[in-house]
């Protein structure tokens, strides 16, 4: 049984090699078509007139038209046209003249005589002719799907690495942006929207202001780069804050450390946002469905980014601690208990309640 399976496996890997080999050595008609269209060789003889074996153009003789053979060719005379060997060397001996091109497929060219055109020796005739190239290059649905899925997975991986970095080095800022998002949800959305509208005018104002100070002109390139970095940073911080909130509401790791919980929440949240993108990628074989799902994914991501960007702006990238500090805390500390232990309320508790 295992031998049979091994044979099957080997067959599976060998079959394409055979297929490829068959593809690169087609019949004479195909070769002639390739020569005509791929190599611009004109005046080709009919396919059935190509004899296998060597061919020699003797000294003192003249051949008009293309000389074509499936073996080596020696030109000692004159050829008013091109010389093509589909499987062998081409030798233009001293005194030999070829007015067109000399072409050898799978062989070499030695020219002591005169070749007015070009000499080309190639490993194989081109398979991708100009007309058929787009069709051959067009990716199959399977390939398109795999490429899209790979792209989404890679982006997810990169964002996850960024998320871990943010959690490690700007954890407090992330907390603050998430807190702002919880407290000022609607305001964060509108702030995000307005922020997006004002991005370019803001940059223009910055550049003009620097230009007006004369000495600040030198700083303009740096300012542009810094502005772009800041904007990308705010978008990323905001999106990760949204992802953390979403992930936090879905994950159940109450007994773990806060950092672990935050990490899991971030990973789950980012994954949630990528699920739709991945679905769209896996539907790439069906362009219409993929477009619809992709549009939904885009809308969801845009909403999250806008919300996050607004929260990042409102909390000044998480450095404005007053928003969270000013809000009433809902959570009770772990040592507190909702059961009244003293006072009138405690005294009114029944014996069964106390028990």
């Amino acid at each position, binding site marked *: 049984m295992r031998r049979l399976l091994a044979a099957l496996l080997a067959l599976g890997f060998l079959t394409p090699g055979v297929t490829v080999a068959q593809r690169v050595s087609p019949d004479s008609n195909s070769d002639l078509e390739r020569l005509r269209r791929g190599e611009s060789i004109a005046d080709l003889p009919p396919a059935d007139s190509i004899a296998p074996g060597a061919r020699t153009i003797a000294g003192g003789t003249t051949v008009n038209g293309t000389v074509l053979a499936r073996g080596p060719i020696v030109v000692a005379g004159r050829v008013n046209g091109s010389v093509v060997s589909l499987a062998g060397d081409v030798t233009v001996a001293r005194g030999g003249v070829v007015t067109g091109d000399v072409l050898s497929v799978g062989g070499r060219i030695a020219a002591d005589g005169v070749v007015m055109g070009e000499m080309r020796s190639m490993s194989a005739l081109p398979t*991708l002719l100009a007309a058929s190239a787009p069709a051959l290059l067009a990716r199959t649905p399977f390939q398109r799907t795999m490429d899209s899925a790979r792209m989404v997975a890679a982006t997810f991986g990169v964002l996850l690495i960024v998320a871990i970095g943010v959690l490690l080095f700007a954890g407090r800022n992330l907390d603050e942006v998430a807190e702002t998002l919880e407290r000022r949800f609607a305001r964060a959305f509108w702030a995000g929207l307005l922020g997006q509208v004002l991005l370019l005018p803001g940059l223009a104002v910055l550049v003009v202001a620097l230009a007006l100070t004369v000495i600040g002109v030198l700083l303009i390139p740096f300012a542009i780069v810094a502005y772009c970095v800041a904007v990308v940073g705010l978008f990323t911080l905001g999106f990760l804050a949204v992802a953390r909130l979403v992930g936090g509401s879905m994950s159940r790791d109450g007994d773990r450390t806060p950092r672990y919980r935050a990490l899991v929440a971030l990973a789950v949240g980012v994954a949630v946002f990528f699920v739709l993108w991945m679905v769209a990628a896996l539907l790439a074989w069906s362009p219409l469905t993929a477009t619809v799902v992709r549009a939904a994914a885009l809308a969801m991501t845009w909403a999250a980014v806008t919300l996050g960007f607004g929260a990042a702006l409102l909390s000044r990238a998480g450095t404005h601690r007053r928003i969270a500090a000013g809000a009433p805390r809902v959570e009770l500390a772990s040592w507190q208990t909702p059961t009244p232990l003293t006072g009138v309320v405690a005294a009114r508790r029944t014996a069964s309640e106390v028990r």
Partner: protein
Amino acid sequence: MNRRIAVLAVGACLIAPAARAQGSPLWRTVDIARQLHDSLPQRIRVQYGAGRVDVRSAGTAVLYDMHLRYDERRGAPVHRYDASSRSAVLGLESREGAQRFSDRDDSGELRLALPSSVPLDLDLQLGGTESRLDLGGIMIQSLRLECGAADASLTFSQPNRARMSDLTIDVGAADLLAVHLANANADQIRVHGGVGVADLDFSGAWTRDLTVDAKLAVGKLILRVPADVGVRLDVERIIAGFEHDGMVKRDDAWYSTNYDTAPHKLRVHAETFFGQIELQRGTR
């Protein structure tokens, strides 16, 4: 267990042909040459996107002798010659829709031999390539070299027998090493770079004075000048260091102490925004 192996085997049989057919490059090699039938000037343009490039002088009487190794799925050889305008375009052009950047490019190769007996106007447009260009012995009237994002080494191992009116080098984000630039026999050299290191060595056979205009946005510009050549260096820099090896400042420029008495003079206008300009007396 056996059932699982069977499923795997069937899966492999189904996937392997598809994966191999779709993903594998179609490597081809082609040698293209054209005989030289006269000694009139010619124009040659070379375009090549990614891979290794090697250009040198041909030993035989050919106008060009090009060896290409390329992935047929991604590129097609270019070899056009117009006899009326005496100009050739050689290299590889990308196929429409083919992915431009991939590790497959690493195995691509262009080797080009150019004639030594014909005056040439040479235009080399190289993208992300690792280029080794030895143009020594080739008669070059003008040379334009464009490099994208890779290493380029330009050498004039032998003096140019033609007078070069202009040598222009445009480098993107690449490291450029130019050796024996005096052998280029050029009236002026222009080097414009984006990001990287430009190492210019002016050794070789000096036949006339030379003017150099070197601009590098970000990076290091190294000028190596033989001790017997007089140097005038006019530097414009914004946030850049400047190392001048025994130069003296006169007016707005830096001069070597032998500038007035030297048989040949090198006048350099160097600009850099961020980085360093370094002048070294002596050669590599």
